[in-house]
């Protein structure tokens, strides 16, 4: 009799836990369907329509896809995006990692350094882009002044089709702070016992770095790599403000081209098509990175 009661009570508690479990994730779950899954599917359907938002949508079949293949600016914008991602991405990672390693040193005033290194990252992008446009100014800019001091020739930077993309990469490198902070958290999460054990085994500083720090940090490197690449693929604001895609379309990135089509020319269907192409490329690339992860990412507690 008592036993039955307890089972009943237990079951009720279990149901209560289920109920509240779902209730608490409900905002996120509803958001997932409303702002993520729903729109994702809708944008795929949109690729088969022509729609200017004002009038009702027209079924267009494969028209958008046909147009995409013939549009020379699609190739240009994808190549520009690839340049920015594959050169800027690894540089970003390297700078952020080096900074995090330095900021993990036990020296006096390290807090001040950490704050200073993070400042560029919290700067509103529009403001920092304006600031860098002024620094890159070919005639009165600070950068060319310093280059001249070093005996190097100045560049036309944002006005030169060859130098515009590197200029934007330099601009974005200034804000390496988010990746840096994540690296820093990873570094602080490495247990001190591991270093002590390695030191007792006679490992020098360099060996400890290669055999303790690096393997323990690979999950964080992997995370930053993936998230960093996804963000780079969608670069928009700095080019929108600083160059507007020019000169000669040299900074016309995929996202910028998408924005123009969707929000300036009101071609929602074509915009969605461009979005899906970029999405497919990003997805493919992310999956590729996951495929290689097993070879170099080390997870604690994983049996090899």
């Amino acid at each position: 009799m008592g036993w039955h009661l307890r089972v009943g009570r237990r079951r009720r508690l279990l149901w209560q836990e289920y109920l509240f479990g779902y209730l608490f994730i409900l905002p996120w779950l509803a958001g997932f369907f409303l702002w993520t899954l729903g729109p994702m599917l809708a944008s795929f359907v949109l690729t088969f329509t022509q729609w200017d938002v004002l009038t009702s949508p027209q079924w267009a079949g494969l028209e958008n896809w046909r147009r995409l293949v013939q549009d020379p600016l699609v190739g240009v914008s994808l190549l520009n995006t690839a340049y920015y991602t594959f050169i800027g991405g690894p540089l970003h990672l390297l700078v952020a990692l080096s900074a995090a390693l330095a900021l993990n040193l036990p020296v006096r005033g390290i807090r001040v350094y950490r704050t200073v290194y993070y400042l560029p990252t919290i700067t509103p992008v529009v403001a920092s882009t304006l600031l860098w446009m002024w620094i890159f100014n070919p005639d009165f800019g600070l950068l060319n002044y310093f280059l001249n001091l070093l005996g190097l020739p100045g560049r036309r930077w944002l006005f030169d089709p060859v130098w515009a993309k590197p200029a934007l990469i330099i601009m974005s490198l200034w804000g390496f702070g988010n990746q840096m902070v994540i690296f820093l958290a990873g570094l602080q999460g490495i247990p001190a016992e591991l270093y002590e054990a390695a030191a007792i085994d006679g490992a020098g500083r360099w060996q400890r770095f290669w055999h303790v720090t690096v393997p323990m940090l690979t999950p964080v490197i992997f995370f930053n790599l993936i998230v960093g690449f996804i963000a780079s693929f969608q670069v928009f604001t700095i080019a929108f403000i600083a160059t507007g895609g020019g000169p000669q379309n040299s900074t016309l990135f995929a996202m910028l081209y998408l924005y123009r089509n969707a929000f300036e020319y009101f071609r929602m269907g074509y915009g969605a098509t461009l979005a899906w192409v970029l999405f497919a490329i990003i997805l493919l690339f992310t999956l590729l990175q996951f495929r290689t992860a097993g070879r170099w990412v080390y997870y604690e507690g994983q049996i090899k």
Partner: protein
Amino acid sequence: MTQSRLLSPVVLPRSQRLVRTIRRSMGAFIAHAFLLPIGVFLLIPFAWMVSTSLKEKGREFVWPPQFIPDPIVWANYPSALTYMPFHLFFRNTLIITVLATIGTLLTASLAGYSFARLRFPLRDFWFMVLLSTLMLPYIVTLIPTFILFTALGWVDTFLPLIVPYWFGGSPFYVFLFRQFFLTIPYELEEAARVDGASYLRIWWQIMLPLSGPVIATVTIFSFIHHWNDFFGPLIYLNSLENRTLSIGLRGFQSLYQSEWNLLMAASTVVIAPVIVLFFAAQRYFMRGIVTTGFGGR
């Protein structure tokens, strides 16, 4: 034995101790020699911005560049601020940022608590879904979301920039909250459960008060994100009186393209509040980031 060797300082002969001290200060010296120049290098653009913002019209084009403006023109600030209603932009940005951040904190911590502590069917599945949306490029949802908000008549209101954040904020914040809640000992809740406290109450009265660092981290991340957001306001806000600081600054740029002193004054005004906030909260921020430690698990 190794334990005790690690814990108690090893007594060394004096000469060796001296070598060790020298080595340590050499190390500190090298660290500073690396950290300091980079720090200065990172700050130069800010200094240049403030310097330019105080220059007399036309003096910003003096070559070689003048680092300390002569004369110092404070009036650039009032003029930049009156050319456009920056006080309105400031108010708008603040409203959006505060409301979106509150929504984020409430719903992300609630979901984080559920994922960390409650057991329910498919929990791990949903958590995997959450993690994978972390890697979802926003472009793929952009256009339909815009169409949805257009259909709702929300364009040129703050709603599209606030309401979505009352739905879990961002998966990254849910993740941060979950990771932090996992580090809180179970015993505290057990006691409350025995006393018959509901899950909602445990979340509100036990978990949240213990979560200072992660709340600080998420608040700062979210605050910076919304304060600096450009793309959202760009597509959703049209009229002048609805603009945020970022969009206002962009509008300012298209009107006063080559008046760099005014542009830099306006930029300084836009940047200053975030920097002040960050300085005030950076201790909690770094601690939050570190204790949440995404390295593990």
